[in-house]
Each structure stands twice: as C-alpha cells, then as structure tokens.
C-alpha cells in the first residue's frame, strides 16, 4: 500500500464531479494547468469556481471551454496581459454567472469552514455594491461594546474539491506548499483535495523543522498525480516563471471564441457546445 493515493491526470479530472464547487488558486499559488486541460478533455460541466481570491488563465480557459456555470472571485484577469477574454465575453453576454466578492471575504468564508463555525465577521465592505448584491451576507450589530457597530457576517463556504499544483510531495504524501498558506485554507475548507506535483522526493518534509514549515500534511490529501511543468504556462513560485509569450498568445487567440477554439485544438481539446462557450 502506497502511503498516498497515486493518480493520473485523467483520474484527477474524473475525481472532480460535474457541478462541483471547485477551489481555484491565484496565479502565485500553483495553478493546476495540466489538470485543467485534463478537465477540459473530460468535458467537465457546470463547475462553480471559488477563487482565492482571483483566477487568470485557468478560469478563463474553463469558461471558454464551457465547463463553468458560475464564478465567485475578487477578480478574473490575465494581469499584465490584459482582460480575461472568455470571462469578459461570458459576463457581457450574460451567459456566465459572476458572483463578485473581495479578497478578504473570500478568505473569511473559507476560514469559517476551516474553524468549523457557521460564519465569520469581516470588516470593511459595508456600503459597497459588492455587499449590496450579496443577499447571502448579513450585517449585525456587534453584541460587544456599547456603541452601535455594524459588522458584516459572511457564511461558511465548504468546497467540494480543491485542486492545485505544487513543487513536490514526499513519499508519505506530504505536499510542499511553502509560504503559500492560502493553499492550506483552500484545503482545510474542502471535502476532497487533489494535488498535482512536479515530482515525488525521497526525503520527508518533516526531516527538519525548517522544511516541516513548508508542508501540507498528507492526511488532508485524497490523491496526487505527477505532472511535470504542471502549472505551465503559469509560473510556479521560484521554480519557473510564467511563460509570458505563451500567455500573450492565449490572450490574443482567445479574444474570439473561434480563436479560443483554435487554441484548444492545439492541445487536442475542444470546447463543450454550451451557451457560455458560444459567445463571441
């Protein structure tokens, strides 16, 4: 018996059910692009993306490929490469449901699940149109202190699946996440945790106190697949930078659905024929 469940990329894609509320990491946190292409290949549908706190290429490709029903995020963007074209088209056409949030609320809603509590208080946000369009959030008067003190409460969010890419796992199934502790938040709040890694290493992450601080413990992880360059064309911490040329090429191609389709075809992939992927 392996110390952990070894999967293939295809098995990872199978383990993300249609309709799942999927935890999505930001571009600094190990974007699982190889697994994302596997999700598109298997024709995943109706995914609900919960981004901590934003998404770039991963979200835009899933949207363009017709895998996505809704997005909750503080932003969707290609960063220095401009607007996320399939996201933008999806919102502007009305085909894609966008649940606008803000970074600290996205963290807080997962933290509530992390702590097993039904809600978390959060400062700020009151008076914004973000709050105005979130009937699932509530404002109460803090029961502490004497003066009126309205506080926003955001409910706990439990993710069905969290999926991310990491530099490596050890033979016991512990995963290196380093200072990307927001990945731990995504993990703590998820029912199922799937990870792709560049490689499996022999030395335990618990061999030294210093490396132990970089670990996501194996007991959280349901399955691991090896995927070299698994974040490409996004970057992976200090291992490889984003492939600016490849992202630029994507940004240019995906300006239209036809261009996006041609981009996918280079990977032997095709978008699902859904309304969200039909928008020009």
């Amino acid at each position: 018996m392996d110390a952990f469940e070894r999967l293939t990329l295809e098995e990872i894609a199978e383990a993300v059910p249609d309709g799942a509320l999927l935890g999505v990491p930001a571009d600094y946190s190990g974007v699982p692009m190889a697994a994302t292409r596997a999700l598109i290949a298997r024709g995943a549908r109706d995914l609900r993306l919960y981004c901590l706190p934003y998404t770039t290429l991963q979200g835009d490709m899933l949207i363009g490929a017709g895998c996505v029903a809704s997005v909750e995020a503080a932003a969707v963007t290609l960063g220095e490469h401009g607007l996320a074209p399939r996201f933008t088209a999806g919102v502007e056409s009305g085909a894609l449901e966008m649940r606008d949030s803000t970074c600290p609320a996205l963290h807080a809603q997962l933290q509530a699940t992390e702590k097993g509590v039904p809600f978390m208080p959060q400062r700020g946000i009151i008076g914004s149109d973000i709050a105005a369009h979130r009937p699932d959030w509530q404002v109460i008067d803090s029961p502490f202190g004497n003066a009126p003190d309205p506080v926003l409460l955001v409910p706990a969010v439990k993710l069905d699946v969290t999926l991310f890419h990491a530099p490596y796992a050890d033979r016991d199934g512990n995963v290196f996440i380093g200072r990307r502790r927001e990945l731990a938040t995504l993990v703590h709040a998820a029912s199922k945790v799937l990870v792709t890694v560049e490689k499996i290493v022999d030395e335990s992450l618990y061999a030294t106190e210093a490396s132990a601080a970089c670990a996501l413990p194996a007991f959280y992880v349901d399955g691991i697949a090896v995927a070299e360059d698994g974040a490409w064309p996004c970057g992976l911490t200090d291992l490889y930078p984003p492939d600016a040329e490849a992202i630029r090429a994507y940004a240019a191609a995906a300006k239209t659905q036809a261009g996006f389709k041609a981009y996918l075809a280079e990977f032997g992939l095709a978008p699902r024929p859904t309304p969200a992927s039909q928008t020009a």
Partner: protein
Amino acid sequence: MNHTPEELLIVTLADMLHGDRHVAVGAASPIPCAAALLAKSESPRRMHVSILHSLSHNPFAEGARELFDAAAQGRIDTFFLGGVQIDGSANINLVGLGDYPNLRKRFPGSFGSALMYFAVPRVILFREEHSKRTLVERVDFISAPGTSPPEVWRRGGPKALLTGRAVFSFDAERARFRLESVHGGDTPETVAEATGFAFDQAAEVGETPAPAAERLKRLRRDIAPRIAEFYPQFAARVWGLAA
C-alpha cells in the same frame, strides 16, 4: 533638469509617504513602487516597503491572507488604489460599466479594495488617465465607498488623488475632492474641463513642484535600476534601461 511625466508622478507620490513606517504596493504599479522606494531611501527612520508581487520583496510569509490581516491590524500606513471610474465622493469602481449585473463592459473585479479602503489610514488614489471617462460624477458600481456613516468602523480612507494632470486632496467630512495643484501645462480650468465631477479648490492652486535636480539624480541612479528588476518594460520606456 528635465523630468519625464512619470518622474513627476513618482516624486509627488513619494512626498505623500513621508513619516510612514510601512507602505504596501500592489501589482502592476511601477510608479507607486518607485515612489515607495524613493521615500524609503529618504526616510530618516526605518520604513518598510512591501512589494506584493515580488517573491523577494513580499515579506508576507503566511500566504495571501496576511496582507489583509496586517491591514486590518493597522500595520500598513499607506496603500494605493485605482479605479476604472473614480467619482466625486471618492467611490471607486473596478468592476465594470453599465447597470450591474448587466454590464456592457466588464473589468477584472474589486480585488481587496473593499477592505483596504477602510483599514489603511492613508489610501492614495492614483490614475494616470484624467478624463471625464475615468473621473465621473457617480461610479456605475461601488467596489469600495469613499466615505462611510459614522457608526461604521473605518480607520482610514482616501487622502489624495493623483492623476496625470493634477493633485487633489480629499475631505471626508464634505465627501469632496479639493484641487491642490496642477501639473505643468494644465490650469485649474483645463483640469475642471477634463473632470466629470465637481470639486473644491485650494486658496491658491499652484503648479505641482518639479523634482529637484539632486533628487532626480538619486531617483535615476538608485531607484530606477531596482524598478527595472520588477518592471523591465517600464524602466526601459522611462529611463532607457535595458530590460
């Protein structure tokens, strides 16, 4: 000594940071980044500059949440925000144009502005484009409000707005901007014409001071090469530094 428009913006922002202990700079912000590094180099006491999208200059060791927690703790003195639209009450819009959620033009989203605008004592609004398109009477979507009712917890908020044409201060009581200075080539009248909202004017609206020669030298010698690390294209364009 001649200066570029960007250099004027850098030194103007740097002047707004004096006395700060900790300035944080977000992504895609070469001018605020240069201003923070310049201010740090001129600070008589310890000043921390956190450059959030740099692996080595981002001090946060506990993931992305730590920035927002640190801001909520009051540990970040100044932060920069922009906006697709900024209105006369300093409301900012990072989400889109049109009648939300039926937007005719979608932008990326609000990021952390809806907390940072409340938690950071001094938020400097920075938007190079100064037009009726960006500076509007009323934003289409409030990503973060410029002011809040007195019972709502709010440590800070907008203190100034810097554009490619002018410097405004912001009066939270009146919920109005006040024109403080115009950059060379503009007048209060040309600024008013290019602005979609009404604003107050300082008793004397002067010209935004040009950078002193010594300071400009230091900026080019000490700061520009460091900006080239984070923003090679910007440094190449403004200072001709090889990427």
